[in-house]
């Protein structure tokens, strides 16, 4: 009898399956983890899986492949897109766990959702939207664990910018980026860059300028718990994460792209505060919301049961 291999697959900061991978490995399952930005050429690893019994678990966008991903985020790594992997290894089961709480399945992707056997939704509200295309089960938000809910935040007015649309700043360069963000950072706001290429050197540069900068690999949910005001930009998942955790959520629009989805954002998260320009932001004027956390923590036991079911 063939042994089942569990493949966990994703792209950089959009890979959110490491905790699940560790747990499955702890339970003695044969697991393979591929973060395409950490492996120079992952195509050979995928090719080796052809003809084997594979369960494919991913948090990556379905339509991103080497060609179009590189246009968004320049890099030299060689890898396959999600649909290419499904075609090549023909997994016995495919599971999608989204990395984005704001838009778990983005435009055009919904047409491909039926390629998966199971969609593990972070909140119940997405069930009705996606269940007709694919079996959908609620498992809670993968970035939020039970112990994180007990983290106490500082009583003083603390704010952090969990920066999104990082590629804009990457193209701009460190010095220009610092100048751009300085009006907010000078007000005592800390910052965290997403875990992408060069984010470590950005972190170091900003630290040298005297800014409080968190590691790109730090857990964003823990940082949201520890702060009272969360700043974000664009259509980042942070919008929904912070909002549903009851925090004051600020979205600074300058430089970011929203396509035609800004209305979606305002309808989904009506109390979110938008600032058109970075210079408009005044920390002293921001009220602090006191709402309870509406996000359910990730249910590891249920998730593993669902993945293992019918195997």
């Amino acid at each position, binding site marked *: 009898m063939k042994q089942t291999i569990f493949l966990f697959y994703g792209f950089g900061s959009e890979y959110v399956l490491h905790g699940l991978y560790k747990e499955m490995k702890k339970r003695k399952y044969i697991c393979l983890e591929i973060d395409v930005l950490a492996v120079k050429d992952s195509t050979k690893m995928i090719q080796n899986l052809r003809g084997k019994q594979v369960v494919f678990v991913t948090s990556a966008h379905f339509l991103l492949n080497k060609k179009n991903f590189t246009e968004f985020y320049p890099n030299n790594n060689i890898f*396959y897109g999600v649909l290419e992997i499904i075609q090549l290894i023909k997994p016995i089961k495919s599971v999608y766990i989204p990395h984005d709480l704001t838009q778990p399945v983005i435009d055009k992707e919904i047409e491909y959702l*039926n*390629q998966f056997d199971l969609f593990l939704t972070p909140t119940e509200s997405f069930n009705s939207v996606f269940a007709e295309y694919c079996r959908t089960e609620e498992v809670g938000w993968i970035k939020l664990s039970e112990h994180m809910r007990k983290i106490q935040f500082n009583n003083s007015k603390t704010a952090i910018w969990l920066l999104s649309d990082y590629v804009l700043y990457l193209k701009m360069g460190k010095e220009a980026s610092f100048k751009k963000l300085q009006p907010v950072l000078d007000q005592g706001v800390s910052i965290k860059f997403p875990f992408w290429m060069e984010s470590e050197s950005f972190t170091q540069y900003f630290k040298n300028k005297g800014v409080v900068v968190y590691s790109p690999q730090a857990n964003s949910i823990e940082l949201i718990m520890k702060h009272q005001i969360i700043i974000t930009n664009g259509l980042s998942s942070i919008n929904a994460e912070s909002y549903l955790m009851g925090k004051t959520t600020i979205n600074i629009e300058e430089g970011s792209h929203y396509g035609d989805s800004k209305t979606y954002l305002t309808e989904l998260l009506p109390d979110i505060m938008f600032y058109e320009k970075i210079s408009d932001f005044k920390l002293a004027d921001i009220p602090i919301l006191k709402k309870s956390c509406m996000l359910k923590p990730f249910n590891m036991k249920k998730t593993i049961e669902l993945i293992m079911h019918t195997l």
Partner: protein
Amino acid sequence: MKEPSFFKKIIKKYIRPLYRRIINRLLNDLHINEHQRLLHHIVNQGDKLSENQRTLKEKVSVLSLLLSGVYEWTSDNHLLNEQTTEVLYDIFSILHAPPKSPIVIARFLPALEAVSFQNKSVCLIGRNQNLYSKYVKDRGIQSLLRIEMTPFLSSKETHQEWLGEKTHYIYPTHIASFSFPRVDFLFILDEHTASFLIKYHLFHLGAMVKEAIIVMLPVKISTIFSDCKDPAFFLDSNQRINSFNDNYIRSQLHLAGFFHVECIYSEGKNIADNYFDKKITHVSYKNGFSVVKKNQQPRKKNIPDDRISTKIYVANKLPSSQVINPHS
């Protein structure tokens, strides 16, 4: 300067005034100007009559559909609304066009030999799909769903047993509200039905198809051998959309959620020498679709030919393993 000749002087002094006087007299006596005005008026009235005739035809189409119960009247839909009449025209084409002869159908069935239907679920949408139904059953399918768009039953879903299978009879506009189950293959091998559905990105049916859609569509021959980079459709003498270019069909199929599109059959003489039949397109997340394989360069010269060729496209949900190349 040379003096005008005696003859020219005579013409200028006597003949020309006389000629003008005679012409004026004739124009006046024969009512020429009046006749000219009347003639213009008749021509204008002719144009107006043609326009009225076209409008009347549209009204008759709408009224026939209203009377037959196919189309429901709402205050939002004006009789002369262009979009409405376009849709109604399409519906009429689906309901009234003669079905394809079995010989024509049998001609392209060998093109489907390469596709494996073993233990797959199949849905057929079209008109009089009996031959296809028998064909896919012989190929070892697991389940079959038939959706027929024929006018002889009511507008509500009804069922009829044919060869032991359940058939859903629905009118074209009701396809969007039909509760569509997930299937491996979707066949739309009736050109009129396919032309109607393709304009509306298949009414979201693409999201329900797991493996591939096989669709028959009319393509204008003059576009086949030329570049035709932009998606385009073509109008008939009644200003209705009656055919497409290859890229229009591909773009609509990609927008309906299909990753990989290729043409597997061409009607007529151009099967062996057809650039588009050897073209494969992939959807690109950022830039729409792009050509990933072409065995033959297109002819640059546009051949003026208004004939319409029937083509069959296979649109796959997943990229083909033969063309996956992460280094490209």
